[in-house]
């Protein structure tokens, strides 16, 4: 089951609000493992691209200051019915996640 989810809502100006919920620990690298006492290494999403029909229109930049299982929302002016919105993220370890959805 894909762990990155997307919601698309039509907004007041006719554009689309895109909200993405990713499953990710967003570790700062400062937290200690309670059992071992060792610091849990930093592990967080860095970039998240928003594309319409394959063309990137926005990039969100994240860091460890963003909450665990992050929610990132943005609105885009250009998406219309029938378009496909895809979101792809990459973290500091090179791991990735992606989700895509058709605009109603």
């Amino acid at each position, binding site marked *: *089951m894909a*762990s990155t*989810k997307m*919601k698309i809502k039509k907004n007041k100006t006719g554009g689309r609000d895109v*909200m993405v*919920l990713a*499953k990710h620990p967003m570790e700062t690298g400062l937290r200690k493992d309670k059992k071992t006492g060792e610091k849990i290494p930093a592990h967080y999403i860095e970039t998240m691209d928003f594309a319409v029909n394959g063309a990137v229109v926005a990039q969100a930049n994240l860091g460890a200051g963003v909450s665990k299982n992050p*929610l990132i*929302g943005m609105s885009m002016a250009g998406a219309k019915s029938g378009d496909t919105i895809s979101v792809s993220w990459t973290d500091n370890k090179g791991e990735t996640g992606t989700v895509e959805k058709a605009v109603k």
Partner: protein
Amino acid sequence: MKKLVSLAVGMGMAVLTASTAQAISEAEINNDIAEFQGFFLKRFPGVALEDYVDGVNSLPQYAHRRANWELMMDFPPYEPEMEKAEEEWSAPFANGKGFNDCDLAPANTYPVYDGASNDLHTLVADLNACLEANGEQPIKNVKRGRMARLIAHYKSQFNGKPMAVDFSAAGAQTWYEKGRQFYWAKRGQLNFSCADCHVTNAGNSIRGDILSAGLGHGVGFPVYRTKWSMSGKPWGTVHRRYGGCNKQVRASPFSAQGPEYKALEYYEAIMNTGLPLKVPSQRQ
């Protein structure tokens, strides 16, 4: 006992001593509902009855924190979990049957009184009974995780339906009375009753928090809590919450699905008569 009596009298509710603990009628329970709901509608004039299902978020004293909930509800963290819940519900048993074949009451009528066993059936118990009847292992952790998700999935299909728990049988009325007494009895080292916080002090501050109104408790459960999600166990049934609450007043918690919490759940569900189901809930 004296304070219990005076507070109950102050609310115009039927006062019962230990010796008459069993003698409560359907009419008196209906009166209790009207008194309980009337108390809150008067205390918080701008809050409509159906708004109480949103818990503390509906209270004016929570206005400075309400945006947390409103923004979280733009895309509730429980949504991916609800997809998982649907998959867990739909997975067939080894014998080919599934949860849709279980003998369950409508979600807005739980807990259900069973005259034959003189017991209350909670949705949790009915799901586990169904698993056992179909040769499956019952779920051990009845407060969190998979059980909470299954409950959320089933109950959410009844969203909008008004709470309508039946209390017409004499045995049911006895269970009601046990729950009512539990709710109004002092307990723990802090010597608080549920009512002390959630009736008398509803909307007031306690340490860094605001006390929720008792009206509406449980209607939105299971709850998905930000605080619990930090330790990887975000879901909780109403009995999980009861245990935590009892610990907060330094009382030993009772067991989930035991008689005390079943009775308490029954009392609260009856006090919520008419409130629409809204499952699951996002809370702090």
